[in-house]
């Protein structure tokens, strides 16, 4: 049996690169390049307006058209990629790592530790997340850090709940109990039994979590909380372009498409970790 687990572990470590995964990595690499070069890629100022030519269709001058204030969409999407992707990454990390860690700790120790951490988590979570985000955003208006913090604070619960639930089952399995009795190092037990079990699910949650972070910014923009103009961010752009959804649907579709590509790329990349 342990042979089988070992071979599982090895495929997790050195997965065979398949076509969809390769596509995922290529897309991620492309996004990373866009983020690093930014709006210079199209040589336009993302904040420069041209009120006399708003909502233009894509042309040679404006590759993706212009928005409601005549700003170049391509430049804004690229400039927005920097903010949106770092927001997504940061919120996934700051919510995922502590969330998972607390969840696994709860499951590992059980008893009072579990109850204590559970009570703590419940107490935090009983405060409406919306309240936390809005408060943080209101305390520091226009600040990105407040938005990051608020969004992470509401997202970590998902990781905590998921990892605790799964870890409890895995850790109470006969295989893990045997390993514990044998005195194997904790690190090894976690790596061998826990990671393959909860890894894929966590990755699914994280890939969607990245999208959630960006749409959360859009949602906040919708209730008029968030960044100051003329900042470009995908979520903010979705909110800003909503009023023109009938006249120029291609405008609001662009940030949505960017987000779809990002989430798709993440899914394709983590897809290889899934069993079969």
């Amino acid at each position, binding site marked *: 049996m342990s042979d089988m687990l070992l071979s599982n572990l090895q495929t997790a470590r050195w997965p065979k690169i398949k076509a969809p995964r390769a596509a995922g990595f290529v897309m991620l690499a492309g996004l990373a390049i866009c983020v690093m070069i930014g709006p210079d890629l199209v040589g336009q100022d993302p904040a*420069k307006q041209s*009120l006399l030519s708003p909502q233009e269709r894509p042309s040679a001058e404006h590759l993706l058209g212009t928005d*409601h204030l005549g700003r170049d969409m391509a430049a804004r999407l690229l400039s927005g990629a920097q903010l949106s992707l770092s927001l997504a990454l940061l919120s996934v990390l700051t919510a995922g790592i502590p969330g998972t860690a607390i969840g696994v700790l709860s499951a590992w120790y059980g008893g009072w530790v579990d109850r204590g951490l559970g009570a703590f988590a419940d107490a935090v979570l009983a405060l409406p997340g919306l309240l936390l985000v809005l408060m943080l955003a209101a305390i520091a208006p*226009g600040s990105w850090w407040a938005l990051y913090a608020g969004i992470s604070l509401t997202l970590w619960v998902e990781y905590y709940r998921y990892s605790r639930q799964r870890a409890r089952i895995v850790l109470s399995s006969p295989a893990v109990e045997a390993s514990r009795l044998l005195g194997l190092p904790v690190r090894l037990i976690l790596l061998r039994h826990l990671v393959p079990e909860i890894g894929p699910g966590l990755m699914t949650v994280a890939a969607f979590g990245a999208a959630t972070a960006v749409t959360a910014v859009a949602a906040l923009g919708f209730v*008029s909380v968030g960044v100051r*103009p003329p900042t470009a961010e995908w979520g903010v752009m979705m909110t800003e372009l909503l*009023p023109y959804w*009938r*006249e120029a649907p291609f405008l609001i579709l662009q940030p949505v498409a960017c987000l779809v590509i990002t989430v798709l790329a993440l899914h394709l990349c983590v897809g290889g970790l899934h069993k079969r």
Partner: protein
Amino acid sequence: MHLRSSAALVAAVFLSLSQAFADTKPVTIAAPWEVASYDVAVSGFAIQKLEILENLVDADENGVLEPGLATEWAASDDGLTWTFTLRKAVKFHDGTDFDAASAALALRRAWQQPGILEKAPITAIEAGDGTVIFSLSTPFAALPSLLAHATTIIPAPASFDTDGKPVALIGTGPFAVEKFTPPQSISVTRFEGYWGDAPEIETASYLAAGRAETRALLAESGDADIVFSLDPAGFSRLSAVDTVKTTAVPIPRVVTLKVNAAHPFLDDPRARQALSLAMNRKGIATAITRFPESVASQLFPPALNMWHNTSLSPLKHDVEAAKALLAELGWAAGEDGILVKDGDRFAVTLRTFPDRPELPLIAAALQDMWREIGIELTVDVNNYSMIPQGHQDGSLHLALYARNYGLTPDPVGTVLQDFGSAGGDWGAMGWDRPDVAEALARVAATDDEAARAADIALVTKAIQDELPLIPVVWYQHTVSVAQDLENVIIDPLQRSYGLSEMNWAK
């Protein structure tokens, strides 16, 4: 009237409207304004528009005062006492009589609350024999106009509990409240005991839909028969839909920029003129508000009749002239293109608010336009109370908002508040022109047109020359009406939805 009861909640949600289907089709009105309170000082605007509660003084769509619950009014010779003679045989929706005591009670309450009456020099409000008598400390000719305002509508004494707290919406209007679900909706039915002509419409409901997209969809689908305040994109879309007619009415509301004239960068009128010259109003009116003809050439729009001064030379767009004015003041471009003088960067903050969706857009446009003349603008989109607060504590640089000079048929109360001595929360700041304040005081004290004209000309010219407020665009009130609804009168003063006048096509 039906008060909220928590127990019947879910039942009420699903109980649909099967009950009150009368002969005529109900009219559904959608607008952005939420109604959440029984207090007329808070939600008088929405209640007045639905013709549930009425004023002593009414006004037609041209702003001419008409008798309302008062049939006539007159000032004493010294102008210090006003007597309003009340209409007889008027009943409240609960069947009680409307009388001098109830009118005086309601008006005293309105006077003690924040509202329009605090703008008038009132010393007492008394009930007489079928009259209400106002005592003033100085003559104030615009008093009847204030009594047409939404915060001076007359609720029945039964609208208040024993502590004087408002707990119901009972008035004298042609429509009575059937069901009130704050903050989203009110249903009304025709009040059969109404003193005036009975309306044709029997039932109507009001839905507060905060988003312009929702309102446009409500109009397009026919779910709402009258939809107020459409966004520019929705308005152009609905103009092409053949089940509705769209109308845009110029209203006396102005998007304006409040400037702290005491700020060291902005204390010279030339600096404010430069800000104005650098504004591409045409661009804003074309791309953002989409009524190119409503570019503000001066503060007061033509809808304000007397206050619109046709002899003023219109505000212009001239970036080079703006740069020249700033250079004249000693500003020179720094390394990053932003102006510098004595080591100070020309960096200022503009406060605005999102409640009117075009304001942050216009702010973003100004940010870009002023960058061109070397001014770095930070846009702070926040709660609108930050503007009066910044006025009081002096921290405000610039503020962008929409000022309504049509709150009352005669705007002098609002203008006096904005440009009187020491300026106003929503008016001039740090702008010291005693002659303007004195002229306004004279305008307020008389209703002699000829005597007013010269003073109004002085005031409007001073504002145009020194720009304590820099006007940006005038407003158009946009409405869509179902094709088969007739006689819908769009009131530029926004006092009424015209429910009692309209009817379905036969």
